């Protein structure tokens, strides 16, 4: 009914929206579209192809799919997303939220505070904290485990960054599940308890059906974020020998490291497509949920 409460008028309204749209258009939409074009060229950072790039069609894509290093990188990314996001962050995040439910006081605040701290600190800082923790010679972890000289980052780079990313990102899942668990009516859990249900049965029969929407949201978002996460670059830079080179790091190394901008753009485009699929599914779910709520 109220089409224009402040009497702004359509012209002024468009004028209000335009600056934001221009900035978004130039620095978000245009780059996304340009990726498609760049991916079809042999554009390079330096040399002849930098001044005068040629259209090479699908060459970059066939080259990428034929590239052993790219396929390894994709596989490592799958491990990274599955291991750190879906198993690590979801599992740990839910467990902590479950253990802290209907609890108050210093224990809850301390655990939540630590988990959140891991999330909000700048990536450069946490990257070094983990380098220090996992250091071969003087690392705190080796000191604790009495395994002096164990080279975590060299011998188990993937495991290291998976555990790192679990540590880094659990806060989001913990908070989301904390909120979700609050939406489970206590009477439902009490009914199950009175009927003699074990914790596992309570979770399976009462809690999970109730928070399915939250779980899907959470899974999609953290998959998307983890898939695009660049922080591990600051710990291993993809090494050693590309054994922790997940796709974001691969793109950086190929495009800006060795200067193959066209090739890097082609790989970026694949990332965009995967992001798009994840985001579309997420938004569909969001809409469906809003539809139910309305």
């Amino acid at each position, binding site marked *: 009914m*109220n*089409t224009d*409460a*402040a*009497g*702004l*008028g*359509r012209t*002024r*309204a468009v004028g*209000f929206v335009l*600056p*934001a749209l221009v*900035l*978004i258009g*130039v*620095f*978000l939409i245009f*780059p*996304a579209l*340009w*990726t498609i074009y*760049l991916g079809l060229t042999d554009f390079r950072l330096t040399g002849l192809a930098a001044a005068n790039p040629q259209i090479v069609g699908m060459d970059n894509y066939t080259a990428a799919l034929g590239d052993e290093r790219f396929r390894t990188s994709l596989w490592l990314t799958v491990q990274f997303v599955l291991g750190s996001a879906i198993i690590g962050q979801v599992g*740990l995040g839910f467990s902590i939220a479950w253990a*802290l439910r209907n609890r108050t006081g210093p224990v809850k605040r*301390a*655990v939540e505070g*630590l988990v*959140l*701290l*891991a999330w*909000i*600190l*700048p990536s*450069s*800082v946490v990257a070094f*904290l983990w380098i*220090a*923790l996992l250091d071969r010679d*003087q*690392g*705190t972890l080796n000191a604790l485990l009495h395994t002096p000289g164990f080279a975590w980052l060299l011998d188990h780079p993937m495991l290291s960054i998976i555990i790192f990313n679990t540590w880094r990102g659990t806060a*989001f899942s913990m908070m989301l599940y904390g909120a979700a668990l609050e939406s489970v009516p206590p009477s439902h859990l009490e009914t199950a308890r009175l009927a003699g249900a074990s914790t596992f049965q309570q979770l399976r029969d009462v809690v999970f059906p109730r928070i399915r929407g939250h779980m899907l949201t959470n899974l999609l978002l953290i998959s998307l*974020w983890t898939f*695009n996460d*660049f*922080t591990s670059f*600051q710990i291993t830079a993809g090494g050693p020998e590309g054994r922790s080179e997940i796709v*974001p790091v691969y*793109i*950086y190394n190929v495009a*800006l490291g060795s200067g193959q901008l066209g090739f890097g753009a082609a790989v*970026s485009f694949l*990332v*965009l497509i995967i*992001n*798009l699929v994840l985001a*579309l599914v*997420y*938004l569909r779910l969001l809409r469906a949920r809003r539809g139910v709520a309305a």
Partner: protein
Amino acid sequence: MTVQDRTAEGPPAVKVETDRVRHAVAVIGRATFLAVAGGFFALPLLWLATAPFDLHPTITTSVPEFTLRNFRALLDNPYVLSSLGNSVLQAAASAALVVILAALAAYALSRVRIPGRDALLYVLLLLSSVVTGTAAMVPIFELATRLNLIDTHLGVVLTLSGGLLPAAIFILKDFMDGTPTSYEESARVFGASPLQILRHIVVPVIRPGLATIAVWSVASVWGSFLTPFILLRDPAKAPGAVILYTLYTEGGSPRLDLISTFSLLYSLPVVLMYVFVSRRYGFRFHGGIKR
């Protein structure tokens, strides 16, 4: 809970006993789990708490021989303090840009029926999550090169703001939608012009939303690494995130007094902002406001 058990397996007393044991096991299990989880999250952080104050900082976490001398190292390195200045500059400029542009856009989108508004919002939300720094680093680098924005603060600010804006508009529009239109209508009946309404009524009413967006923008820009890393070459313009990274990746043995104090100093603002926001407005869950 125990009264219900009327199974034939044994006398009730035994049942009560096993239930008590089960309960105790559950309590202990929960406490153990929380302790282990807390330890896992605390372990890497300990170094940040001790090393800056350790007379002889090492990589290993240890009880420090207390000193504040390490903080003098910050003054020795030519780039450390200037990088903090750069971080402040980039974060403040981005936050200002995001808050102003997002507020204007959100207001108009909330109050005026512009054709295609819903589709626009949908696409914006989609884009903000799809076009990440990772996926767009090549064209962004190339765009900045062509626009002569390489090695400028402006390039970093514009790129980061462009990425933050869609979500900011979305959140602020939600905020706007939640404030009654009668505020503006009554002002209008009293003769206020649209700009007066904006200044006197709308901005003060949505101030908590603006503050949220400002803090969120500052925190995002403060921590961002990839964009300044690829757009800035001159270390004199690099923000803290990039300088800190170069401090521990450049050759030679890292200066731990410098890295530890710098890390602490660099972390402090985001932690303080988080505490401020959660105290002031309560930590509201904005569907993944931090990316």
